[in-house]
């Protein structure tokens, strides 16, 4: 029984490790400036995790393989209540390893969240609502027109309550897909009209909740042109599973041209761009 258990534990351990090592199901290639550093931190962590996991399981298997009750009279186990020296050793070692990981694990976070939005960033307002993403672009003047919840009218397609009487709103555009420049810092101003949603683009290695009543400013830099799937990652109600949109990462000139377009033309151009750039999923 002990040997069978040991073998099963070892087989499970091997298959589990293989599932990761084979990389058959793995992260999509990263498309953000912070992505490679995040991936490196993941590889360091998964190495520590994998080695500890395998060592503990192999050790456990070894114990049950080796230390069976033989049933012989007078054959007894080792009489020991432990070893203070060992307790100190393994406490200190795990504390050093785990806390080092914790400290290393802050650097990408700090670069994104403790630092202000870099100057010259491209800003987009994101207004989520149940099962739909709305993106508000400032237009040529780089100033967002005023919005007011009282002006929201989903029926009249004013999803974000844009105040048309505000001169700054004249050149603004609102669409349901996101377009950002490549290799240039992007600032998102995240808001929600109703419940909590979460902005999630897997290859971007980036996620942030959109919380009603708050405007949360985050920034990142995308490094690869293409179209990527954008999902909602926080349960927001019935059709959460299809609150889907796209993020277009565009060459600078293409984005500048788009930005200069008035609302109706902007919408048309957006459709063309979504058709032009196929969705990248790996």
């Amino acid at each position, binding site marked *: 029984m002990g040997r069978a258990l040991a073998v099963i534990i070892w087989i499970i351990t091997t298959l589990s490790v293989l599932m990761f090592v084979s990389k058959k199901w*793995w992260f999509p290639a990263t498309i953000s400036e912070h992505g490679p550093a995040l991936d490196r931190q993941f590889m360091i962590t998964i190495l520590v*995790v994998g080695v500890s*996991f395998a060592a503990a399981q192999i050790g456990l298997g070894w114990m049950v393989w080796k230390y069976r009750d033989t049933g012989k009279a007078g054959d*007894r186990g080792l009489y020991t209540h432990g070893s203070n020296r060992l307790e100190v050793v393994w406490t200190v070692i795990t504390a050093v390893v785990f806390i080092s990981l914790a400290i290393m*694990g802050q650097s990408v976070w700090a670069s994104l969240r403790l630092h202000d939005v870099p100057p010259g960033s491209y800003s987009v307002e994101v207004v989520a609502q149940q099962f739909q993403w709305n993106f508000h672009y400032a237009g040529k003047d780089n100033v967002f027109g005023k919005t007011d*919840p009282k002006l929201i009218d989903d029926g009249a397609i004013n999803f974000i309550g844009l105040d048309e009487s505000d001169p700054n709103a004249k050149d603004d555009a609102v669409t349901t897909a996101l377009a950002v420049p490549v290799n240039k810092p992007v600032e998102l101003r995240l808001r929600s009209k109703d419940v909590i949603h979460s902005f999630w683009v897997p290859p971007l290695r980036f996620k942030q909740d959109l919380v009603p009543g708050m405007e949360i400013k985050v920034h990142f830099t995308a490094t690869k042109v293409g179209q990527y799937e954008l*999902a909602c*990652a926080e349960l927001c109600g019935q059709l959460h*599973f299809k609150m889907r949109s796209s993020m277009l990462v565009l060459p600078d000139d293409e984005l500048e041209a788009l930005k200069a377009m008035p609302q109706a033309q902007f919408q048309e151009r957006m459709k063309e761009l979504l058709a032009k750039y196929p969705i990248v999923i790996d």
Partner: protein
Amino acid sequence: MSDESHEGVHRHPAPTGFIRKYIFSLDHKVIGIQYIILALAAVLVGMTMSLLMRLKLSWPDKGWSILATLFPAGAPGGVMNPEFYLSLVTMHGTIMVFFVLTTAPQGGFGNYFLPIQIGAEDMAFPVLNMMSFWITLIGFVVILAAIFFSGAESTVGPIGGWTGYAPLSALGAIAGPGQGMGMNLWIISIAIFCVGSLLGALNFITTLLNMRTKGMSLMRMPLTCWAWFTTAVLALLSFPVLLGGGILLLLDRIAGTSFFIPGGLYVSGILSGTNPNFPLHTGGSPILWQHLFWFFGHPEVYIAILPGMGATSHILATFARKPVFGYRAMVFAIFAIGLLGFFVWGHHMFISGMSPYSAIAFSVLTLSIGVPSAVKTFNWLGTLWGARIRFTTPMLFAIGFVSLFVAGGITGLILGQTSLDLAMHDTYIVTAHFHLVMGVASIFGMFAAIYFWFPKMSGRHMSESLGKFHFWITFIGVYSIFVPMHVMGLVGMPRRFSQFTEYGFLTKLHPLVLFVSIAAILTISVQFVFYFNLIWSLFKGKKASDNPWEATTLEWSTSTPPPHDNFAGVLPTVYHGPYEFAVPGAPNDFIMQTDAGAEVASGNGHNGHKH
């Protein structure tokens, strides 16, 4: 602690009527069994829901005729609709966390064995104990009612996940299906559950501190008692916060308050304050709910697993035929986990919009909690080192616990890092992590406990061959279910999606989703072998002696099953630490705690008691 003070005072005669004996019983043993039966019923409901969820995820468009009959609105033509699925998610989580993982380990086995293991005749407050069970049962009835009175018939309860994030949970029916009466019942059920758990926690703490028998110093208590005690302290400090939060949430829903609802919301085409269905709200904070919920929610995961750790230590030592390795370190580790458990709740909220600086503090504290967890694992391995293992069914499940605790716990090192959470948050790796560690590992602890203590409780053994069959399939099954979920998370698969048909990047995961569902169906089917074994053994099982496992602690020094006052009027005196196995020179390979004659060397478990 003198015996004179509680001998007589706490003694109450055995009741004779059926109702006082088995229904409104004051006997901690009967109450413990009532809790276990409640958990066994609740886990059936929760498990059935997980089965339905797997069916939906793997065959999103297939019609199941039985569902068409049972839930014509939730599964028209037998095809489950999204809101039906999401209500299953919510109810599965709530029932499993509250009514299974919090009831069986603590209210069930803790109630039955804590007084016996410390040599007491009953709990300190038997009436409170009875009330805590009946209040918990009412909570269960209310959560079941949410299935049938959820407002929109297309669901089987509220929609919000077990965390019920506001404002989705706070807005009322206007926020969509699953936000009507069912959500009120969900909150009320949890509030009732909080009250029941608080009464239980008070009882555990008082009993353990005041009612230990002569010689039962703290450092001679079995590790199970330390685990139940720490769990009770966690419950006492965390449930009131959830209770308060739940009341505020209910007020937001029914009294028009705005604790969690900010101003200016526009929901389902209506602006707050412009329609009687959506009164004016202003000034609330959705993040406040998350703080209150997780201040409870994180200690809760330790409430679920600490008793399993205690049972595992206890059972490992018994069948390893060796003392627990590092008893004192184990006690300190339990305390460290309990204490740190109160300072890590923010790791559920890195990307919630809270301060990124506090996220860093929570992250470092979170990885620190891995240290006492690792210390426990090292000591379990130390206990097995040089052992003479008897591979009984409870031992298999205890070894399984260690394996699963490592597998599930260790990925906390990934999820606890702020940077990595940007990619991992709310994906399937989180689902995999907490199911393995707080769900499956805890349940393995409870399986170990039930196979181990069933003979003492019922007077009969459970079938070993059925038990081993149950172990092998379940052990392989749970790994097959939850390991693939980790890599789903790496690909980026979000949790709480009712189907994975809408995204290109999820397509390559479909075979894996199917594999997990098949593994889940097999694993769930085998659980019926366990139920059969339980009932069959009650009547036909092999008769058990007083100490069938040749164990050392007090529950094995009394008769099987224990008499009404546990020790037939004579409280035991304790002379030894709890795990004196393999003592050199002793006639047997185990020395019971009550064995006055035996000489043992001083070691951990004897500290403070020179003899």
